[in-house]
C-alpha cells in the first residue's frame, strides 16, 4: 500500500502545535522511520496516520486511492504496535493475536490457522496458551508485533517498539525486527528517538524536529548529505568547526583546511571518524583527552579551535595526553550547511 499525507497538521485544544503542515509519501513495501527527539511531533504524526488523533481541517491522508482522513481507527485496517504493547491482560497469547481476526468475523477455523501461522513466524508457538503476565519483555514485544500483523493490515505502525526493553535486549531485537518486517513484506512506519535503531531497521528515515519533517532519505543520504545542522548533529553527531572562511579556504587556530566549494555564509561540519591523526596533517593540536572504546580510541584535541575537536584513532599506540599531534580532514569529508540560528 502507498501512503500519502498532504498538508497534515495537528494543533491540540490547548494550543500546542504538535505537527506543522506536513507532506509525506511512503511507497508500497517501504519501511520508514520517523526519527527525532521527544516532542518533535513524530508520535503525533504516527497517531494521525493510525486514526487515533484527528488532524486539523485541510489535512488529507490517502491509503492508495482511499481518502481515509475521516475514517475512525477501527475501520482503517492498520496494525499498531504500542510503546507499552497494550496487550490485553484478560486474554492468552493466542487470543490476543486472534482478536483482530475475530473482529473481522472470520470463521473460527481460519482464525485458528492464521494465528498458528503468525505464531510460527514470530517463534511464539510454545507460548500460545500463556497468559500475558507470564511473558518476558522481549516475548511481549513479539506478541504485540504478531497481534498487529495477524489481520494482514494495509499498513503497520510501530510506536517506539523497543524502548520498553533493556539495552542489551534492545540491540538483539533490533536486528530481529528488521528481518521480521522484511519477511512480512509490509509497508511500515515506525517511530523512534534512537538513530541506530532507525538506521538498522528503516529503508528510509524521516528526521523530525519542531513538528516538521526536516529531511527524509536513506540512512546513507542522511549521514553523508545532511541538509541542516540539526540533521548533521542528530544523525551521527557531526561537529561544527569554529573558524573563519575565505572562499574555499577555512582558517582555524590550528591550521587551514580546503573546502570542497565556497563556504561563505555556511557552517562547516565534520564527523569524528573523518578527522584522521597523521604525520604531515594540516592541523596541529594538543591531545587533551583519550578515551578507549574497545574498537578504537576517541581523542579530544585542543588548540585547533576554541572547543575540543574530536577525532578517532584505530591503531595500537594511541597518542598520550599532552602530546602535540597533527591531523588531516579531507575536503570531501567537510559538510557545508546553511547557517543555523544558534551558530550565527
Amino acid at each position, binding site marked *: 500500500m502507498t501512503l500519502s499525507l498532504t498538508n497534515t497538521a495537528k494543533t491540540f485544544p490547548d494550543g500546542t502545535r504538535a505537527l506543522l503542515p506536513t507532506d509525506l509519501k511512503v511507497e508500497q513495501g517501504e519501511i520508514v522511520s520517523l526519527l527525532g527527539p521527544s516532542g518533535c511531533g513524530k508520535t503525533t504524526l504516527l497517531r494521525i496516520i493510525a486514526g487515533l488523533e484527528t488532524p486539523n481541517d485541510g489535512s488529507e491522508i490517502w491509503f492508495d486511492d482511499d481518502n481515509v482522513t475521516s475514517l475512525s*481507527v*477501527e*475501520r482503517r485496517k492498520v496494525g*499498531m504496535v*504500542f510503546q507499552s*504493547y497494550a496487550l*490485553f491482560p*484478560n486474554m492468552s497469547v493466542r487470543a490476543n493475536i486472534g482478536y483482530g481476526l475475530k473482529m473481522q468475523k472470520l470463521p473460527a477455523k481460519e482464525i485458528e490457522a492464521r494465528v498458528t501461522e503468525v505464531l510460527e513466524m514470530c517463534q511464539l508457538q510454545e507460548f500460545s496458551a500463556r497468559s500475558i503476565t507470564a511473558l518476558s519483555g522481549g516475548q511481549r514485544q513479539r506478541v504485540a508485533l504478531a497481534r498487529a500483523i495477524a489481520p494482514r493490515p494495509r499498513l503497520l505502525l510501530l510506536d517506539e517498539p523497543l524502548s520498553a526493553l533493556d539495552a542489551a535486549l534492545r540491540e538483539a531485537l533490533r536486528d530481529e525486527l528488521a528481518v521480521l518486517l522484511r519477511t512480512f513484506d509490509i509497508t511500515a512506519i515506525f517511530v523512534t528517538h534512537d538513530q541506530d535503531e532507525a538506521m538498522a531497521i528503516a529503508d528510509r528515515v524521516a528526521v523530525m524536529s519542531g513538528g516538521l519533517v526536516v529531511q527524509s532519505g536513506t540512512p546513507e543520504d542522511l549521514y553523508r548529505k545532511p541538509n541542516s545542522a540539526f540533521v548533521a548533529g542528530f544523525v551521527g553527531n557531526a561537529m561544527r568547526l569554529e573558524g573563519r572562511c575565505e572562499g574555499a579556504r577555512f582558517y582555524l587556530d590550528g591550521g587551514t583546511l580546503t573546502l570542497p566549494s565556497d563556504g561563505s555564509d555556511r557552517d562547516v561540519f565534520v564527523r569524528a571518524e573523518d578527522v584522521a591523526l597523521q604525520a604531515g596533517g594540516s592541523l596541529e593540536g594538543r591531545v587533551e583527552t583519550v578515551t578507549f572504546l574497545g574498537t578504537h580510541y576517541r581523542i579530544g584535541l585542543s588548540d585547533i579551535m576554541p572547543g575540543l575537536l574530536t577525532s578517532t584513532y584505530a591503531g595500537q599506540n594511541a597518542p598520550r595526553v599532552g602530546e602535540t599531534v597533527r591531523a588531516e580532514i579531507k575536503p570531501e569529508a567537510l559538510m557545508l550547511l546553511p547557517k543555523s540560528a544558534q551558530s550565527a
Partner: protein
Amino acid sequence: MADMFKSKAKILQLTVTLLACAFLLVPTILSVMAGLTVNYFKGISSGLTLKWVFQVWELYADSIFLSIWLALACLVVTLIIGLPAAYGLARHPGWLSRLLEEFISLPLAVPGLALALALLQLYGSMKGFRTSWTFILVGHVLYTLPFMVRSILAVLASMDLKTLEEGAASLGASPFQRFRDIVVPNAMPGILAGSLTVVTLSLGEFNLTWMLHTPYLKTLPVGLADSYASMRLEIASAYTLVFFIIIVPLLMAMQWASARAQRIAQ
C-alpha cells in the same frame, strides 16, 4: 526497665483487644443461643430446639424472600447503571467526573432517613409507585450504587485503559466491542467485589427501607425490627440467627473480594 514497660504495655493492649472482641462476639453468641433454647430465661438447661427457627420461617419467610429478590434486583440495576458509568468516569477523568462521582456518593454520607424523607416528599403521592416493591428498590439502588461504581472505578483507574482500548481499536474493535471484550473482563475483580458489597448491603438495609416499606412489603431487616418490638426474645433471636446465616458468608466473601480488588488496583 524498657522491657518491663514493654511487656506491661503488651498485656494492656492484649486486654483491650480481647475485651473489644468479647464485646462484639458475646452478644452475637447470646443471640444464637437464645434462638436455639427452649426458654432463654431459664437458660440452656431448658433444652435446645429448632422450633423458634421454624416459627420464624412461618412468620417471616415472605420477608426473607422479598429481601433476596430485592438484593438480586438491586444487583442487576446497579450493574446496568454502575458498570457503564464507572467506565465513563474512568475514560473522562476531569472535574466534571469528580463532581458526578462526589454527587452519587452523597448517599454514603447523608443518613438514609433523610434520603427516604426526600424520596417520600417527591414520590409519596404517586400511589402506584409508592406501594410497589420498586419504590424500595430505588432506595436500595441509591444507597448501594456508589459502592458498585467506586469498586469498578478503582480497578479501571489502575490500568492503562486508554492504551488498551487504542490497541483494540487498531485491531478493528468498535466502542461497544472494546467495552465488552476489554473493559468488562479486566474490571472483573472490581465487579465481583462491588456485586458482593451491593448484595450484602441491600440484604441488611434498614434505614431507608423502614421509611419506604408498606405493611405488605416487609424486608428481612424490617421484619427483624418488627420481631424485636413485638415477639418473644427467642423468636427475635432465631430470626437474627437466620439473618446471620445469610449475611455472614456474604460478608466474608465480600471482604475477601474487596481485598483482592484492592490488591489488583495497587
